[in-house]
């Protein structure tokens, strides 16, 4: 009896240790209410900010083994808004996001590089309105709490060119009115991530 118990305990320990050494697949959970994906553009020099209210992410990242990590996003384009009813009514229309035809914008990582100090560089493909482009997204990761209560916050921003994604077509393609450059900013709150 005793040897059998010992061996089970030993086996469990070995599995646990091996698991830890192999780097278990950590799947993180996004807390949408504490997360934000926003964008900033300039209209005739005037900075205007908007945000997406609905998005989801599948993130598996061990901060100590970023190269094995994966990040995938899907953003509900119809949830984009600037907070003013007149402008928000335009956003889903064909010249802008054409949400009827392209309800989702997606991001799929292809490589994650750790830069140390909680900094990462996530390369991947951003697809909006049927157009796919390579982007490199700098991410700063910070953590509070420990164990199951640990909360990780990923923040960052990157620039895209709206015309590469056909956002603002026709008469709106004029970049002297709406600048081509769009700053995308995000703050993502995640649970279940291993320590940095």
């Amino acid at each position, binding site marked *: 009896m005793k040897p059998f118990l010992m061996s089970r305990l030993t086996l469990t320990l070995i599995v646990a240790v091996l698991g830890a050494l192999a780097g278990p697949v950590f799947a993180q959970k996004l807390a949408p209410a504490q997360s934000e994906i926003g964008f900033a553009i300039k*209209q*005739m020099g*005037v900075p205007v900010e908007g945000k997406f209210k609905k998005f989801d992410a599948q993130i598996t990242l061990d901060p100590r083994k970023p190269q094995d990590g994966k990040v995938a996003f899907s953003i509900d384009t119809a949830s984009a808004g600037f*907070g*003013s009813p007149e*402008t928000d009514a335009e956003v889903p229309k064909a010249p802008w996001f054409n949400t009827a035809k392209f309800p989702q914008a997606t991001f799929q990582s292809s490589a994650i590089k750790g830069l140390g100090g909680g900094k990462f560089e996530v390369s991947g493909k951003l697809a909006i309105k049927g157009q796919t482009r390579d982007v490199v997204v700098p991410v700063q990761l910070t953590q509070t709490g420990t164990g199951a209560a640990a909360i990780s916050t990923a923040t960052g921003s990157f620039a895209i060119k709206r015309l590469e994604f056909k956002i603002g077509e026709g*008469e709106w393609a*004029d970049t002297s009115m709406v600048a081509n450059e769009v700053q995308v900013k995000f703050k993502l709150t995640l649970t279940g991530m291993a320590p940095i």
Partner: protein
Amino acid sequence: MSSALTSPAPRYSGVAIALHWLLALMILVAFGVGIYMSDLPVSPTRLKLYNWHKWAGVTILALSALRLLWRLGHKPPADVPMPAWQTGAAHATHGLLYLLFFAVPLIGWAYSSAAGYPIVWFGVLPLPDFVPVDKALAEMIKPWHERAAIAMMLLVLLHVAGAIKHQFVDRDGLINRMRFSAR
């Protein structure tokens, strides 16, 4: 026939005359654009007109400040002889107009800021917000910009009516004081 029209009379200074006509033109155009643009659907034209209107408004505000400072330093010509109530009405109209030269653009600026669109003068110089971004506040301010502008235009009409009366009824040569050049 009328000697009053040709007699040399004290005139406003050249700077005062230039600012008067420049601002008259700018205010008329800004008012017209303001009325027109507010009914436009969202479009590049609307976006352009809104920004031009704001740039014009801030320019009018700045020039009005310059004009007021000039006026404080340079006495206007003495009143042309007329009944006291008319002198009083003319001065009251001028005073209210000056008040609105400042109030109308300032209320517009506040509306723009509250609505979340800070003004960037000529697309280059970002102006500070003196009210917070607050949609409810913006909706509250909005009608007052229009009301104040309409009040200003009614006073402009009264001002023009007075000038026309002096020219064609009283024939006292009053408007020579504000012409570009003396006859």
